[in-house]
């Protein structure tokens, strides 16, 4: 008998706390293994031995490489976190950091390259497998460790998580090993470069701006790492060869490298891209998700009835008459339901290949009437409505499915064998997806081309639906989730969008209403949506980037979002209420342009309820779906006259209201705030630098700057008085007062510097003296700079530094 895995310590996956502890341990190991280089002593023949300062003694902070490597690895993992890792982002960053630290520790602990790499690989596998198991446990896999393994191996999502974590680990380990052990910064940056670019070109366009900060961080830290490892490699080499070092401390090199990295990054970010259009399909024909269509699906490039919802490119409206109808519904108008689409695949909706029941003419639809909750026969507050349809022209050929005014209930006068498709329990139906005739509708209609159908429309109130609960029957649970093989990234995006749109809702009804209203108010209806990039679900692109689409986009998005939240939903393809008053007999005319897709949400006891997320300016939510409707829909469609659908395209500027707390947008504000803060700090710092002189050192630095700019000598070799005298030549311009002030200031500084009193004594005098010179200081710098430029011309004498003899 196997004991439960939860009772065995080895079966417990790593928790976040354990991961943090692991990170801390790796950090401690890395620090403990930090190199301690003793100064190399070079026997200088014939002269006193020369002590070659080690890298550390040179002032080169050995931790700089470690920090830069950590920044690079974590930034790269951060980009993955923002784009694909989602909630696992922190784990990815931690794994990358652990990779760097473990590489550092192994690099210091062992001189064997093979042993170090082996240790890295083993450590990486252990860490990533442990975290993957943790994630698997978190998403419901339970039982023994073996069960976890099986779940992970069987689940594509877990494999994807594992692969992403391995990428994070490999990035960190690669960067750490090559930068910290081999001092090869350029090679160390190759993998982050590949990971970043691969990440950026494969994520949806809306997310392409989201990892801006991680990418910027990776760029700056990567470039700095390249430069710094070069300096470090050189310093280590000199230390080993006994080459004495002279001149500036390595911080100067570090500053130069950091400055160059920032400048390069800024220029790279500001440079316009050579191409903004995705032309990858010309090179790679992998095809987007939308290329997968059901063989029987009819995808309209022109408006018309469709048995599948595959949001695609622009639609040209065709106004060919399809049918006319009369109905007993209030107002004489009703949605004409054709087929219910419950099969969601890669962002598209298809009819479910479910069981069907074939019925003879006149037979009633055999609903399950066992009284069990959730069957069509037990649904509450539904009203039966009749629909009499007269097909016009080739309408019967265009529409293969029988049209109903709601959930199909009966078709008494159909003179043909017909087939009902839907969820069944034995030979009885639980719900109906679509009804077709065996011989085809066009061949089954009476000569009048008229047929009457009956369906039920929910009359449940908002309060009833709010209290309907979530006790869904088992047969509808399949409609409450997206298929497990759905793309990880897109599903995450949809879930994030749904959560944001449904903010504040406490029950499925409110969620559905919130999402419906959010779509109606924040997205734009158009028949000419922008092309969808390859590799992206059209609805994800619609929600996150284009914010423009037609009914298929709106309905698909709402249905999918509801499913990510566990609410049963499906799409219905059919026709809208159509135009009123076009026919003299009072019937409403339906043309191809009235083809429509909307959403049905399932509520326990009340069945499927229509929702209308499409803000086309014509169709409005009715019944319970109309409750709490938000402001007037945003639409770019021009409406020539009431009741006529527009064919115009969107010409108005698109200003979609962003409805999600998208990280990219949040970062946009953070970016602005940080930039403003930086500017303020810089301005304040500059002001303080200009205004504040209270010590001789501060005075010396300001005068030295002018001397350096004017190339008037090496400031390091000049006293304050000499500096002041040199500055006077560019400050006074013949004005003796300025020169006197400077010399007086220098005298004060000297007095303070060489006084027995604390430096604070006399600070006021120095500040007062500087106050008299301060206004002339910018001009002094300017003239010094111009003089320096003249001196730096051809034939200029270089600054000479005399180094200690060796």
């Amino acid at each position, binding site marked *: 008998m196997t004991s439960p895995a939860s009772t065995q310590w080895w079966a417990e996956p790593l928790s976040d706390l354990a991961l943090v502890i692991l990170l801390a341990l790796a950090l401690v190991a890395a620090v403990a293994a930090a190199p301690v280089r003793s100064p190399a002593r070079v026997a*200088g023949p014939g002269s006193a031995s020369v002590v070659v300062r080690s890298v550390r003694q040179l002032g080169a902070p050995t931790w700089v490489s470690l920090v830069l490597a950590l920044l690079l690895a974590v930034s790269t993992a951060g980009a993955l976190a923002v784009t694909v890792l989602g909630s696992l982002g922190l784990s990815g960053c931690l794994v990358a950091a652990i990779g760097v630290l473990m590489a550092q520790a192994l690099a210091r602990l062992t001189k064997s390259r093979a042993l170090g790499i082996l240790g890295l690989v083993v450590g990486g596998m252990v860490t990533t497998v442990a975290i993957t198991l943790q994630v698997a446990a978190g998403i419901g896999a339970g039982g023994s460790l073996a069960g976890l393994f099986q779940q992970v191996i069987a689940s594509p999502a877990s494999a994807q998580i594992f692969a992403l974590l391995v990428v994070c680990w490999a990035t960190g380990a690669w960067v750490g090993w090559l930068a910290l052990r081999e001092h090869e*910064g350029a090679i160390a940056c190759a993998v982050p*470069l590949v990971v970043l670019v691969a990440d950026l070109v494969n994520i949806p366009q809306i997310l392409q701006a989201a990892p801006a900060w991680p990418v910027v961080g990776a760029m700056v830290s990567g470039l700095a790492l390249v430069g710094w490892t070069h300096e470090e490699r050189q310093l280590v080499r000199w230390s080993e060869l006994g080459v004495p070092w002279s001149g500036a401390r390595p911080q100067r090199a570090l500053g130069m490298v950091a400055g160059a990295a920032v400048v390069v990054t800024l220029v*790279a970010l500001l440079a316009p891209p050579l191409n903004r259009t995705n032309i990858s399909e010309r090179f790679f024909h992998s095809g987007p998700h939308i290329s997968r269509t059901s063989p029987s699906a009819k995808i309209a490039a022109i408006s018309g009835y469709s048995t599948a919802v595959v949001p695609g490119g622009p639609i040209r409206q065709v106004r060919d008459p399809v049918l006319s109808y009369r109905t007993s519904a209030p107002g004489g108008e009703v949605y004409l339901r054709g087929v219910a689409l419950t099969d969601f695949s890669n962002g598209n909706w298809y009819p479910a290949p479910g069981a069907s029941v074939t019925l003879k003419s006149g037979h009633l639809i055999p609903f399950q009437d066992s009284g069990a909750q959730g069957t069509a026969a037990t649904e509450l507050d539904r009203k039966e409505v009749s629909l009499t349809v007269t097909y016009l022209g080739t309408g019967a050929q265009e529409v293969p499915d029988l049209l109903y005014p709601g959930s199909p209930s009966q078709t008494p006068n159909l003179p043909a064998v017909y087939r009902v498709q839907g969820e069944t329990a034995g030979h009885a139906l639980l719900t109906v997806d679509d009804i077709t005739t065996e011989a085809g509708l066009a061949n089954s209609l009476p000569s009048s081309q008229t047929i009457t159908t009956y369906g039920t429309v929910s009359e449940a109130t908002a309060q009833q639906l709010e209290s309907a609960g979530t006790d869904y029957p088992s047969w509808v649970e399949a409609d409450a989730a997206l298929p497990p093989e759905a793309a990880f990234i897109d599903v995450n995006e949809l879930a994030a969008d749904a959560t944001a749109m449904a903010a504040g809702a406490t029950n499925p009804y409110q969620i559905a209403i919130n999402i419906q209203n959010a779509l109606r108010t924040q997205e734009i209806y158009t028949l000419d949506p922008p092309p969808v990039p390859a590799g992206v679900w059209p609805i994800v692109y619609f929600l996150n980037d284009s914010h423009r689409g037609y009914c298929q986009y709106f309905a698909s998005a709402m249905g999918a979002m509801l499913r990510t939240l566990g609410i049963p939903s499906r799409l219905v393809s059919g026709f809208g209420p159509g135009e009123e008053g076009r026919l003299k007999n009072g019937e409403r005319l339906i043309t191809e342009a009235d083809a429509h897709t909307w959403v049905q949400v399932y509520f326990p006891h009340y069945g499927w309820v229509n929702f209308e997320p499409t803000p086309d300016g014509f169709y409005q939510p009715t019944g319970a779906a109309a409750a709490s409707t938000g402001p007037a829909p945003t639409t770019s469609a021009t409406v020539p006259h009431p009741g006529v659908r527009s064919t115009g395209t969107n010409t108005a500027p698109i200003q979609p209201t962003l409805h999600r707390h998208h990280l990219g947008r949040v970062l946009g504000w953070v970016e602005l705030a940080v930039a403003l803060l930086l500017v303020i700090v810089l301005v304040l710092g500059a002001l303080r630098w200009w205004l504040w002189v209270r010590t001789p050192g501060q005075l010396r630095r300001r005068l030295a700057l002018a001397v350096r700019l004017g190339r008037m000598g090496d400031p390091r070799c000049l006293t304050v008085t000499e500096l002041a005298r040199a500055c006077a030549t560019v400050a006074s311009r013949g004005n003796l007062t300025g020169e006197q002030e400077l010399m007086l200031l220098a005298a004060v500084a000297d007095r303070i510097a060489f006084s027995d009193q604390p430096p604070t004594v006399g600070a006021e005098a120095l500040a007062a003296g500087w106050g008299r010179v301060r206004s002339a200081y910018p001009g002094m710098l300017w003239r010094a700079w111009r003089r320096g430029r003249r001196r730096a011309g051809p034939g200029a004498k270089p600054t000479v530094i005399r180094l200690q003899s*060796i």
Partner: protein
Amino acid sequence: MYRAALLAVVAVAAFFAYINGVQLAFAVVYAAILVTVLSLAWSLIAARGVSCAREAPGGTQMVGELFSQRFQVSNRSFLPIPLIEMRDLAQFPGYRASRGLSLRAHEEAIWDSEVRLLARGRYTLGPTEIRLADPFGLFPRRLRFPADGSVLVYPAIYHMPDFAFIGARAGLDSDRGGRPRDLPPSASGIREHDPADGINRIHWISTARKGRLMSRTFDAEEGSDLLVVLDLRRGLHYGTAPESSLEYAVTLAASIAHGALRHGRAVALLATDRELTNIAAGRGDAQEQLIMESLALAQADGQVGLGDVLYRHIPAWRTRGNIVLITSDPSGEWVEAMAAGSQPGRKAVAIYVDARSFQSPARTSTIPAQWRLVLDIWTIRRGDDLSRLDPVVGRAVV
């Protein structure tokens, strides 16, 4: 190689960024390209602006002296160079004049480098190598500046007794050192006056005729010349400079010649090297320079037997003065020939540099007693202080 791989990675990344039209991917690729171009340009410009110069005393130096050079590395470009490595590739033994630098724009570094000369020979002053790179180290460059001049390092010279009279019965002035003596008064020529010359050496007639002071030169006393024979046959010498039997032998030869010349003797040098160097007897600075240059470049590459050489030259030298042989040959084939050079009352001198003390595989270095009957034999071993040779005991005094 790795640069090519990195460029390939960047190129592939650029391709994918282009076909996908992703701005951030472009930014990453731009940064990579930009830093590459920047580094290349930086490296090229900096390399063009860098120059290296050295100031070194020309002419001759002597082993043991400090040789001082002044280096100057200039950066005349407008770009700072964070790291420059200057390597002096001069082949002075134990010499390492590499230096790491960091130069700002229009800045130059000057420093002095001193080296104690450990071995004789001719050394080129350079070449000099400058290694620099851009701040990212992507395009390292190596600049080579050719050697500018050379320096000839003479062997070290120690104070030596006057070997012209070593082994002879006490001569009148054998113990007198220092400047050439004025006696005998048989003038042999006229030369420029040296302030050290006595007034009685001034040749007033020539002085009056030339308008400047001229001094007389005199023949040294008969039989006071010195022949230094240096055994430079291949395979005799052991050890590594400066602690090698060859260096000891050459140093002894140079010191003996120098000492004799300082005493006004005419000194000749005979070496058993490949060229069978034979410098005729002469006096003065020119002769010393000739001998020193020869000894500075002497190598143990001779193949002719020492006995043959001695038999060929010693008879002609027998009456002219003393002979000093410096050898490491323990075989004794040269003893008979040297004995032939001895004169009644004056033994030829042989300085035996014990090669065994320089890690020679020779089994014995004992000087047979019978050799000492015909020759005045000195023995020098590794570590002996050559400045403290005792003519009485025939070795260095510790």
